[in-house]
């Protein structure tokens, strides 16, 4: 039987990813397009954090002319799988355009077909986002030989099995221009060789890169299943992406604070700190913990979430004890925002940045046009609450 690069569970044992990793993010707050070269360089600097078994990049602002369509970027084993995907997409969406993603030959020994479809979902009864979420989940769970790398608008994920520098070369990352980038390199302790298991892990326009291991996985999976999220890809990161999507998008919280609530649910303040808050804040923090108690992610993690919903946003977050590193920085002109596992990755690009250590369990949020939430105060700081 031919080895599949797209699916872990067709031939490999169904094991969950346990990994250490390097992560980085670069966000031009003026929405100026930046080549992928700096982010690739950041990853190359942190080579110590990977073992050559997976890396990837997420880029936003790629398709200005097609930005109202969802871009499904897929890895596909063979023509048969591609036909199955096409057939499936045709029954639920209008395919506006499709093309092969150009890759450089001779970098990786083996690689799948990388293909993208620009689609517009047809069902008007369900929100287009929900349809696309279901389409992505269906392809990933049920179509043999195909895996969705990403499915958002004006963005795509480029990932695969190899060193971060190899993946950058394979996709010619330096020739791609985007205003927001995130990247990841893996040090997995099992299931090597699976392209889908690399990060960024993406759902709709969200992409998550993650360093850590989620000890609450079972609880989170059960919680998400109640709201229609099937966790079948056996990565912790999948869980984080769905929790973010559920709380920040599906719960209909006010746009401006939805991601703050999601981050608070993911790593809430300790009860001992909540007990000392002002009455309004205490009510908010308590209720967020009560309502989303099983969305809390336990275990060591540092993550970067990038999303285009409701507007381009980059979030850095860590577990409540900050058992994995995360450093944030802003360029001297205040126009470029960085996140990385290690300071040297940022210094490689810009030695003059102003950098800081976000507090354990406190999110750093850079949202286009808004002041940066620095992750040094509690995330509800500055809001008028009642």
């Amino acid at each position, binding site marked *: 039987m031919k080895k599949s690069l797209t699916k872990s569970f067709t031939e490999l044992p169904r094991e969950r990813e346990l990994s250490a990793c390097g992560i980085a993010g670069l966000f031009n707050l003026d929405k100026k397009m930046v080549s992928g070269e700096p982010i690739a360089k950041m990853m190359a600097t942190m080579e110590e954090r990977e073992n050559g078994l997976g890396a990837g990049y997420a880029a936003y602002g790629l398709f200005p002319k097609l930005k109202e369509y969802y871009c499904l970027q897929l890895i596909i084993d063979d023509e048969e799988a591609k036909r199955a995907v096409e057939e499936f997409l045709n029954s639920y969406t209008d395919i506006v355009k499709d093309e092969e993603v150009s890759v450089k030959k001779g970098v990786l020994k083996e690689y799948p077909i990388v293909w993208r479809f620009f689609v517009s979902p047809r069902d008007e009864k369900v929100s287009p986002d929900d349809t696309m979420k279901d389409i992505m989940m269906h392809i990933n769970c049920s179509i043999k030989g195909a895996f969705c790398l990403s499915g958002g608008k004006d963005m795509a994920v480029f990932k695969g099995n190899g060193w971060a520098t190899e993946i950058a070369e394979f996709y010619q990352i330096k020739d791609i221009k985007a205003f927001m980038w995130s990247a990841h390199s893996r040090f997995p*302790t099992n299931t090597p060789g699976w392209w889908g298991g690399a990060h960024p892990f993406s759902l709709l326009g969200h992409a998550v890169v993650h360093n850590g291991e989620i000890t609450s996985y079972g609880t*989170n999976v059960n919680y998400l299943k109640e709201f229609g999220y099937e966790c079948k890809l056996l990565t912790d990161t999948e869980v984080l992406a769905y929790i973010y999507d559920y709380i920040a998008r599906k*719960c209909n919280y006010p746009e401006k604070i939805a991601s703050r609530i999601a981050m608070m649910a993911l790593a809430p303040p300790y009860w001992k700190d909540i007990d000392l808050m002002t009455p309004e804040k205490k009510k908010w923090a308590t209720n967020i913990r009560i309502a989303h108690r099983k969305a809390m992610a*336990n275990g*060591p993690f540092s993550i970067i979430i990038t999303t285009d919903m409701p507007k381009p946003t980059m979030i850095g977050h860590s577990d409540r*004890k900050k058992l994995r590193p995360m450093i944030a920085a802003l360029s001297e002109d205040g126009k470029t925002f960085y996140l990385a596992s290690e300071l040297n990755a940022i210094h490689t690009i810009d030695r003059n940045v102003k950098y800081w250590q976000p507090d354990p369990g406190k999110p750093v949020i850079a949202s286009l046009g808004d002041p940066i939430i620095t992750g040094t105060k509690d995330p509800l700081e500055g809001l*008028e609450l009642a």
Partner: protein
Amino acid sequence: MQAQDKTIPRFKTSIDYDKCIKCGRCSVNCPFGVIEFDREQKKPVIVDTSKCVACQRCAVYCPGEAISIEEYPVAYAPHANWTPWHIRAISEQARTGGVLATGMGNDRSYPIVFDYLVWDACQVTNPSIDALREPVETRTFLGKKPKNLSIKEVNGKYVMDDIYPNVMLSTPLTVGHMSLGSISYNAYTSILRAVSEVGTLYGTGEGGLHPSHQAYKKNTISEVASGRFGVSPDYLYGAAIEIKIGQGAKPGHGGQLPGEKVTQLISDTRGIPLGTDALSPNPQHDIYSIEDLKTLIAALHEATEYSVPVGVKVAAVNNIAPIASGIVRADADFITIDGFRGSTGAAPRVIRDNAGIPIELAVASVDQHLRNEGIRHQITLIAGGSLRSSSDLVKIIALGADVGMISTAVLVAMGCKLCQQCPTGKCAWGIATGNPMLGKRIDIDWASKRAANLLRSWTADLDEVLGAMGIDAVDSLVGNRDRLRYIGPNPHEAKILGVQHAGSRVEIGGE
């Protein structure tokens, strides 16, 4: 009573007169009439060892350690089918023609599922947490949880609507329902004091709350059972209300407190005349269907102006999963499931020993079913019957319960030796008795400290286990079966539990 009516005693009590100091404490302490003080010989003597129940009271109180209790050394002819247990039961039934009553939980040797489970701990890829130095949280809320919060932006201000009432517990551990009457006033007061010190709840049991216990009201779950004894508008304003449909030790059965046990104390608490029988019917006679239950839940919500969570307690039976789902849909805020090993003050032995299913399987099945229906997040799931140790608590939470409930363990902390004589009312330890002289044997200061210590000890154990699992809040253990492994003999059981076999790395995934 004829000689043929007699069965061989179960236990043989003996006094070593070389060690005996002839103080007579043993005879004073034995309420069963085994030992009496012989005034002529000036020493205690065994007058009827057939009455000995191995409660150990005499032996513990003997200053000379002179008393020994052993199984009576008379052999029954070996028979694997007709065991002494069967022969004794038949003899008793033939003598009385009645139903055999018993106390405490099912004592038969069914497999114990808890003992087939082990849990995971952190190594290398994730760090364990030192619970002594870093925060590990056990705070838990009892009540209905919303799917999401309701937040609006009004003139630049963010307004969050209130959520359903939720009661804060310092630990996911409550004390189950034991009514005043089933246990003594002093035992009852001791438990109330312990839970209020620790910051958790005690079930009032059927029969109300005594006027002298009003100070502890916010640490009680007010039981509304089939006899409605003690139910008043004021009584309903405890921390929570629980409609009792069933009890693990006697599913499908109610309860009786005979008139002779309805003393002034019980009369004051239950709101019934002195000396009248307090009979709790088997079903609630206003609940013959799920829609009837819904009506009662709504009535209790109305009566307390939606300020108190209303739950339903059911025994773990075959169909527990759809029953639980019906209860959630009937608008309950929490469900208490009592397993087939749960205890009782009095129940027909035939029911106690055979009806219901183990709590481990019930919780696994309910948790799974409610998740499939997308309603698990709404409800607080309390599970008891019986949790014997902190490890059982960890396992039941990982299988899907939010809160563990213990009763027998608390009684053991206060001196109970599981002699199962509760229905006789002669409890030598002053626990399961309405006799005020026996009840005084419980020193409230001592017993409340012991009970509080037990709750604290299990919570500290939970902290340690969570830390070793790399989890710093108990919320992340609830239903986290990923962290359990099965080491028992029956793969089918593991499947029902939704737990992988030890040594297997194969992911169970969703279904």
